[in-house]
């Protein structure tokens, strides 16, 4: 440690103590939270309190003697803080070490202290909960008592087990000499990047100490960011968020209608607003509560139309440089000229590599900003009729209103423990209440030219475009402007058809417009669905959407599930997720929920699909009109396949037991019902529907019986309806970390379906290379372009001979995708679908995602294929190649994507070589696949690897939960 200090100037000991040498109350802890405690200690010392903080610098091995010597001999009570929870243990790790060290020292007689300190343990900061000086103060106060609470928690309000400490949130140790600035922005507007630069500028160009911390929400599209910046003449130890800001910037005008951005503004603070309105009229556009705060706190109010400056200077929707310039101009942290010079220096440093054009446009933006910055004269009284909107509508269910609502508005930390579901199961169907309004433009349907093909409905990643056919009489209550058209189905001709967009849930990705095959005969750019500004349409289309959602769904057994056109009429049970705008994964998941509806059970590996699939505050999986929906759970990368297999085994066991009970109770239930339940044919929607009717009748009859068997049967009767178990995850799971488990599960012969959302990188963590990454593509950990080829997971699975395997690309053929999903689910054994999923990490405009998928197929890079073991029994080749021979070179597909072109720019020679090899990969793959597809059945014995044979030996459970 001394050598480290000599080299770095930073001095650490095994334990560092700060506080009164004769402290009576001491907190022991490690990590960054010590900063908050140190500030508290400093303030309490000034008030004459004898307190201290012992910082653990080296945890393992725990140096007990050094700990005892670092601790003041006067200590009477100690609070040991752990940022972890070990259920079932006597205490958390550091607490146990401290207790043991003190005890052993006393036993060994190695301490000369006459006092036996009282030790309590506590937890703080779990799940990124805040830990503030107010909480540290509460701990010191607790140590004063004669019976301090042991095993306490701090930072949450535990009104269930009552282990939490109360604290006074008004207690603050903020240094008045430190500037505290808060910036509310969108991920896409560049706010965070600009603030990172600002902090560097201040740190480098002034004598100030500087600190920056950035808070993100759980969404990938339209995510809100809050930047917390502190700078000042004294060292900054404040390891907690700013709650008293001397500068607040709101970079998005629309935030004011939903978020309390001025809550943390100190009296007299500066408020900078980016708004598309002039200084003379902005006041009238603010909600009343915002006006009141500005007046009451006497805020200095500045305004800029940042987007106007951005448009005029070629910056598009990036207002980062513009808002940064405003911050420096207003805050005065540097003389204006020097600040501008420093900003430009930072721009050159950040963007210099990206070329002179980018540097120049940022410079121009800086130069144009100040003339647009205005100070607003604040009127004496609030006079607005606008009100801040609640995070969710009042009509939302109680849990959504009372628990999810506060989380949406950023006040989740204030919720008491009792607000949480007892078993951790969160209700589904909650994403529909979070109206995010993030799209600048939304699609608008032209019913006159639409051919009702359903492609837009199929690709919409957020399920905001839906179609229904319904009785014309229902239009009697339709809002004005609600569109309908005669359905282009012979069997529905007497009904009406509507394609409706949810304006407040749309992300504006434009995939729908890109896949629309219709063009107006009089104006080629006009399609059957076209983007238009959202704001003027919001109110009207929201009313239309509300009306639309109340129209009845078409019966599932009235539709052909293999037709894309009919699939558009199947209700999606996955909607409005936080996935990226234009996500290539979610259309596949939505399709799963449409095809298999409420029978779906999903085991979801960690990755993007677990984040947008089940992250707080809201859940995109939802319920149908009968209140039923998919069951979903997330597991780890390394065990998700086994986790899903467990779901299969559990469902099969439940079904087997239910069948046994039905058989035992047959006399009381009636032989006909019992026989119907036991012999149900459930391969079709009609068969499933009939079984559901029997189930309803069964439940009625069981209710009249009072026996342990009847009660058991009631609990598990739902398992008599065939379940569809799906193991879902990305390539990081299936190709890499979960590959071993997946292989075991595929080899088990059990009836599970696997959907691999193949983005060819670890997307959720920012695009790290996986074994699915293709040769020549750049990814993190493959910055020189990946040298090895992509693993052929399909061929691996095919080698079993008993696994249904498919490679699909919705943009290559949506019909093929739908067909494979149905075949995989129907196959009575393991199925694997590898779905090409375009991704933001590929580096191109996501509205072109489906076009790129098509190019991938045309180039032969992503051949569409199926391997169906059942075809063998029919004397056919199980290997079916469903796409044509390559018709464009690999380069024509690949060089539309930055993951390939950036290598060509940075290292042209390597890119040329890798491109050549990648083309060889494609050629070789095509030769292998086409040869396999041309193989006669004689090459593969009908008996080898027969799925039925595998199931007979490996699947001991009776067929109650089986598919056929």
């Amino acid at each position: 440690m001394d050598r480290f200090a000599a080299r770095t100037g930073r001095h650490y000991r095994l334990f560092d103590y700060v506080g009164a040498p004769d402290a009576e109350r001491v907190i022991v802890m490690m990590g960054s939270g010590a900063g908050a405690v140190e500030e508290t200690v400093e303030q309490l010392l000034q008030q004459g309190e004898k307190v201290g903080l012992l910082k653990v610098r080296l945890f393992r091995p725990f140096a007990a003697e050094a700990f005892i010597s670092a601790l003041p001999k006067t200590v009477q009570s100690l609070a040991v803080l752990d940022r972890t929870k070990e259920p079932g243990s006597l205490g958390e790790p550091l607490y146990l070490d401290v207790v043991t060290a003190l005890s052993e020292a006393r036993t060994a007689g190695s301490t000369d202290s006459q006092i036996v300190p009282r030790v309590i343990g506590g937890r703080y900061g779990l799940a990124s909960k805040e830990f503030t000086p107010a909480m540290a103060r509460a701990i010191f106060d607790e140590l004063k008592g004669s019976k301090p609470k042991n095993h306490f928690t701090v930072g949450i309000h535990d009104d269930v087990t009552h282990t939490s400490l109360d604290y006074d949130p008004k207690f603050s140790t903020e240094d008045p000499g430190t500037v505290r600035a808060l910036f509310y922005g969108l991920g896409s507007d560049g706010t965070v990047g600009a603030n990172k630069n600002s902090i560097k500028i201040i740190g480098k160009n002034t004598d100030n100490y500087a600190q920056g911390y950035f808070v993100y929400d759980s969404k990938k599209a339209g995510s809100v960011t809050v930047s917390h910046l502190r700078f000042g003449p004294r060292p900054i130890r404040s390891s907690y968020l700013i709650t008293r800001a001397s500068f607040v910037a709101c970079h998005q005008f629309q935030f004011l209608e939903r978020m309390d951005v001025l809550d943390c503004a100190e009296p007299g603070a500066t408020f900078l607003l980016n708004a598309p309105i002039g200084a003379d009229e902005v006041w009238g556009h603010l909600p009343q509560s915002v006006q009141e705060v500005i007046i009451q706190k006497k805020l200095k109010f500045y305004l800029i139309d940042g987007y106007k400056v951005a448009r005029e200077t070629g910056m598009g929707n990036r207002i980062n440089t513009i808002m940064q310039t405003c911050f420096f101009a207003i805050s005065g942290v540097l003389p204006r000229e020097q600040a501008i010079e420093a900003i430009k220096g930072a721009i050159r440093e950040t963007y210099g590599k990206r070329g002179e054009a980018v540097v120049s446009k940022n410079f121009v933006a800086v130069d144009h900003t100040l003339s647009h910055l205005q100070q607003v004269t604040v009127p004496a009284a609030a006079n607005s009729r606008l009100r801040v909107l609640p995070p969710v509508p009042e009509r939302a269910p109680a849990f959504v209103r009372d628990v999810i609502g506060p989380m949406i508005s950023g006040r989740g930390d204030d919720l008491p423990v009792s607000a949480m579901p007892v078993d951790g199961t969160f209700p589904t169907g909650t994403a529909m209440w979070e109206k995010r309004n993030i799209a600048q433009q939304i699609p608008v349907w032209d019913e006159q030219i639409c051919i009702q093909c359903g492609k837009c409905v199929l690709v919409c990643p957020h399920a905001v475009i839906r179609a229904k056919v319904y009785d014309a009489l229902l239009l009697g209550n339709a809002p004005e402007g609600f569109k309908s058209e005669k359905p282009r189905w012979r069997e529905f001709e007497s009904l009406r058809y509507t394609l409706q967009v949810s304006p407040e849930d749309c992300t504006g990705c434009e995939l729908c417009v890109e896949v629309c095959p219709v063009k107006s005969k009089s104006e080629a750019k006009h399609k059957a669905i076209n983007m238009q500004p959202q704001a003027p349409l919001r109110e009207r289309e929201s009313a239309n959407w509300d009306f639309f959602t109340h129209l009845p769904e078409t019966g599932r057994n009235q539709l052909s599930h293999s037709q894309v056109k009919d699939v558009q009429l199947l209700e999606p049970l996955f909607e409005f997720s936080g996935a990226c705008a234009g996500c290539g994964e979610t259309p596949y998941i939505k399709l799963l929920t449409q095809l298999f509806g409420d029978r779906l059970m999903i085991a979801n590996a960690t990755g993007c699909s677990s984040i947008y699939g089940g992250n707080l505050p809201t859940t995109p999986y939802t319920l149908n009109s009968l209140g039923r929906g998919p069951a979903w759970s997330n597991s780890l990368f390394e065990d998700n396949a086994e986790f899903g297999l467990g779901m299969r085994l559990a469902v099969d066991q439940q079904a087997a037991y239910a069948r046994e009970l039905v058989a035992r109770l047959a006399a009381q239930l009636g032989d006909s019902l019992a026989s119907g339940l036991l012999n149900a044919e459930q391969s079709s929607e009609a068969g499933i529907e009939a079984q559901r009717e029997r189930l309803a009748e069964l439940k009625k009859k069981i209710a009249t019986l009072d026996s342990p068997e009847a009660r058991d049967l009631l609990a598990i009767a739902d398992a008599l309806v065939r379940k569809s178990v799906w193991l879902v995850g990305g390539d990081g799971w299936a190709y890499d970390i979960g590959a071993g488990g997946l292989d075991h599960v595929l080899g088990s012969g059990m009836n599970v379906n696997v959907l691999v959302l193949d983005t060819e990188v670890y997307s959720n963590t920012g695009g790290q290379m996986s074994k699915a990454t293709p040769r020549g593509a750049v990814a993190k950990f493959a910055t020189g372009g990946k040298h090895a080829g992509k693993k052929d997971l399909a061929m691996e699975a095919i080698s079993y001979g008993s696994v249904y395997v498919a490679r699909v690309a919705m943009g290559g053929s949506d019909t093929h995708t739908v067909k494979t999903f149905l075949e995989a689910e129907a196959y009575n054994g393991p199925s694997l679908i590898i779905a090409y999923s375009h991704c933001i990490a590929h580096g191109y405009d996501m509205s072109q995602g489906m076009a790129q998928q098509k190019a991938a197929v045309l180039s032969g890079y992503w051949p569409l294929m199926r391997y169906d073991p059942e075809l063998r029994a029919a004397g056919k080749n199980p290997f079916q190649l469903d796409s044509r021979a390559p018709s464009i070179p690999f380069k024509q597909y690949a060089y539309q994507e930055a993951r390939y072109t950036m290598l060509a720019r940075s290292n042209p020679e390597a890119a040329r070589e890798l491109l050549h090899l990648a083309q060889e990969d494609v050629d070789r793959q095509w030769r292998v696949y086409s040869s396999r597809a041309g193989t006669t059945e004689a090459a593969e014995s009908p008996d080898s690897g027969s799925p039925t044979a595998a199931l007979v030996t490996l699947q001991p459970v009776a067929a109650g939960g089986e598919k056929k």
Partner: protein
Amino acid sequence: MIDITTTYLGLPMKSPIVASASPLCESLENIRHMEDAGAGGVVLPSLFEEQLDLESQAVDSDLSRGSESFAESLDYLPDLHTYNLGADGYLELIRKARERVSIPVIASLNGVSPGGWARYAGMMEQAGADAIELNIYAIITDPNIESADVERNYCDLVRQVKANVSIPVAVKLSHFFTAVGNMGKQLDAAGANGLVLFNRFYQPDFDIESLEIVPSLTLSRPQELLLRLHWVAILYGWVKADLAVTGGVHSAEDVLKSVMAGAHVAMMTSALLQHGIDHVASVLAHLVRWMEKHEYESINQMRGSMSQRSVEDPAAFERGNYMRVLSSYTLQKTR
């Protein structure tokens, strides 16, 4: 001994055939091959300032897309050390070509910004270019822009570039001017050392099935030569600048016609793309045979011999000739 040497932009050339800007000239091996085949000079592919800007913007938007939005993925693509943006790659091509061949290497530039033309021209000179061809490839789609302004801008940029470099500067222009001859004179007066007639514009096609505009890239055909011959023949003698024909030069006859019209050189692209670089050698061999047969001593001897000034009937280049052609066509049809 037949002398087929010439000069162009004051640069000595061993033959009147110049390989004009095409993807072939991106490769140093091809450039050497062109020299070996007898090309008098080579024009490198155009450096498009707009493309450099677009590439810079593309890298920026690719690296920025989705960044700083989600705690676990603050960006999605690795930031590499360099992206070879800007003109570096092009300037390197000039340098290497200059080292490898002894024939003149002419750089070609298409700028967008007022300062861009002059800046990049200066860089090209520094890199060793023997001359610069300003490729004025602009399609004025805005109906509010007046032709006089366009013409003035072209002349201004020639002056700017000339003021910034000391090597010769040629201008490659299109025939879409109301008064082509006057435009040539204006550019001449602005200091252009050469006029290259004419640029070929890629004209987008319509796909009536998909209702899409599709790019259409067609190679030049020999028929296109006539327009060039016409204007070279008219301009010859009116301007100090050297004249070059580009577009439709495929055969020895085409080269001969070009020179007889008044050109110092004839530029070839499509023929090389179609027949390979060795086509230069066979055209030159044919050219020499023709000159021998017709007892010409040198290329210079025939330059301008069929220009408007030199022919017996200057009106052949004017309206009267057009009317005669029409009436003869009508007579043929009615016969």
